[in-house]
């Protein structure tokens, strides 16, 4: 059986033009997808059944037992942490928020170690952006800053930017100028018309200099800024100002390096300044398939996109204080529920280590590094493979992930609802 227009749930591009061939409940061929999509669908090995860590090692347990014990762990906690959410659908995320609100937990999603700083910047200065089709149809200048789409978002350039045929840009490769800014000469830098190599940690200074130049204050700028020549900066500023439609995409090179959200704020303010000359937009390249969805769901339910603390009954938000890494590193939480993510692998050691000291429950289709740190791991469906649900693309476009096969696992939203019901004395949300 061939299934058309399948959505790949791996990264924030949510490409929705895949063709899957299924046979006997198995996916046997993926077409149109990148290497990441192919491995997502083709080599999807799962934890077979719920497991529990005991004195003598791991043992299999039933779903009912696992759910009961999870509820007990959460019920007794003084500062539970609910973390992850970005690789599952909105339906599960929304139950997660209800659990957090019910038990006075901290709930955080993976943007905390991804584009959390972008959110902090947006909260200071806003976000002049657009859907990806605007870029595809109009942009004649594309800037990739501190990101490497060839590796992290392999089809971004062919679907939305550099190589995509757009209404006002029929000959994309000739009509689009691509600028890449990075500390490393990446493969993406290799295809750029202009590569700007910045010294480590110099992004903020370069962005400030560009803003000043765009404002006609080039005289203030020294001959070199963070390793970039003033001539090149002036040239870049000119390319931007004379663009018909410019688009900046940025990645973890800005969010994770020195200064964190201030880098992004500066990039947004450069975009703002350029809008006084022409049309310019800026967008983060979001990582996990539905990380933006977790921000959306958290926001309409709690008012905040991530790092929400319900300890006092109301929703409180203060990244740096209520973010997962900080809560773990300070050893604050006394129980953790990890859903659809792998902090064991993705958090600094000291933060991950705390998960092994407290009762941690993982709900995830796959065995991952966090499994080793957990007391219980409950396997579930993978959104977009054997579960349907809502995901939000990196530009905010909501897309319904398809269920393409059935592998007999329960949906994580169902598992979470059962946990909620137990916590709520048998009553639904």
């Amino acid at each position, binding site marked *: 059986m061939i299934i058309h227009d399948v959505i790949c749930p791996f990264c924030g591009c949510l490409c929705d033009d895949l063709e899957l061939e299924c046979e006997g409940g198995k996916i046997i061929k993926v077409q149109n997808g990148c290497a990441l999509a192919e491995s997502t669908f083709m080599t999807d090995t799962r934890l077979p059944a719920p497991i529990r860590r005991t004195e003598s090692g791991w043992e299999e347990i039933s779903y009912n037992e696992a759910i009961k014990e999870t509820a007990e762990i959460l019920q007794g*906690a003084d500062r539970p942490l609910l973390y992850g959410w970005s690789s599952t659908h909105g339906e599960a995320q929304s139950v997660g928020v209800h659990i957090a609100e019910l038990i006075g937990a901290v709930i955080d999603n993976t943007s905390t170690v991804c584009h959390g700083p972008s959110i902090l910047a947006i909260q200071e200065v806003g976000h002049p952006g657009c859907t990806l089709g605007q870029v595809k149809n109009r942009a004649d200048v594309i800037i990739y800053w501190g990101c490497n789409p060839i590796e992290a978002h392999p089809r971004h350039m062919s679907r939305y930017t550099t190589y995509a045929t757009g209404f006002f840009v029929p000959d994309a490769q000739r009509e689009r100028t691509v600028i890449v800014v990075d500390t490393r000469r990446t493969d993406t830098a290799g295809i750029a018309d202009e590569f700007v190599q910045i010294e480590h940690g110099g992004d903020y200074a370069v962005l400030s200099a560009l803003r000043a130049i765009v404002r006609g*204050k080039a005289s203030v700028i020294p001959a070199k800024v963070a390793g970039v020549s003033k001539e090149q900066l002036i040239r870049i500023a000119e390319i931007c100002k004379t663009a018909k439609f410019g688009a900046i995409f940025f990645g973890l090179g800005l969010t994770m390096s020195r200064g964190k959200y201030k880098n992004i704020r500066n990039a947004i*303010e450069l975009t703002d300044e350029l809008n006084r000359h022409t049309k310019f937009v800026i967008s983060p390249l979001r990582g996990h398939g539905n990380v933006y969805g977790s921000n959306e769901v958290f926001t309409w339910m709690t008012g905040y996109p991530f790092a929400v603390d319900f300890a006092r009954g109301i929703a409180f938000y203060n990244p740096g204080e209520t973010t997962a890494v900080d809560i773990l590193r300070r050893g604050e939480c006394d129980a953790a529920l990890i859903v659809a993510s792998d902090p064991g692998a993705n958090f600094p050691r000291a933060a991950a280590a705390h998960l092994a000291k407290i009762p941690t429950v993982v709900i995830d289709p796959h065995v991952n590094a966090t499994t080793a740190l957990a007391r219980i791991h409950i396997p579930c469906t993978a959104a977009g493979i054997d579960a349907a649900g809502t995901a939000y693309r990196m530009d905010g476009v909501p897309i319904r992930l398809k269920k393409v096969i059935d592998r007999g696992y329960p949906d994580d939203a169902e598992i979470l609802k059962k946990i909620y019901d137990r916590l709520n004395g048998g009553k639904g949300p």
Partner: protein
Amino acid sequence: MRVILESKVRAKPNLPIEAEAIIPRNFLKGTDLLVYEGNKERTLSELFWIFVEGTAVSPENIEVILKGDTSRIKRVGEYMDTGSIVIEGDIGMHCGNFMSGGTIEIRGNADSWLGREMRGGTILCRGNASHYCATGYRGEKKGMQGGKVEVFGSTGDFCAEYLAGGTVHIHGSAGDFPGVEMRGGELIIEGDATRPCGNMKSGSCVILGTVHDMLPTFEKTRQRVLPEWKITADVYKGDVANRGKGTLCVRS
């Protein structure tokens, strides 16, 4: 009147305590106050040994003294308007939030967000203060608007972010981005600083130590003798990237 609060040993010492109830005014009516440990409500006496010495008829004569392990206690002195608080050791986050009057003295170190959105009064921190000392809240246009924060040690990053009024005086060094987004007030750093005053709009900043990674968008205007610090300083205007009209003085 003197209220001494000595922290009790806790089963889970890493759990944060939120204790905005600890302000002098509240002790006029007794010590029957509520605080929070993690997601649980506690009475003050569950977490502290409480000793009261003397009496007071008005809150300005009340002194609150915190002893023991107080490093995880947040929001002490929040909305405080009068009286004084002395913390003998370290204090947790958000000490002196929205404070409008009175004095807080911290003999140890202060965690992040010391004096957040402060309006008036004085905070003295004898040790170091962590990140976001004397700043504002996420998304808000103004940080600290009045009063004085004096840190005798050093501070972490983003000190005096969005400073809009009042004085912040750091005797030691400040980390990355002190005075970032400043729009008023006065920031004095006697030690070193990295990338000071990024994107500043207005206000003034004096740095007596070494500046690392000076931003390229500050325009050097002149030299000036600063008699109160007994130095000659280069005077910069900026941040030019932001049409800013702030003043940044750096020892020549």
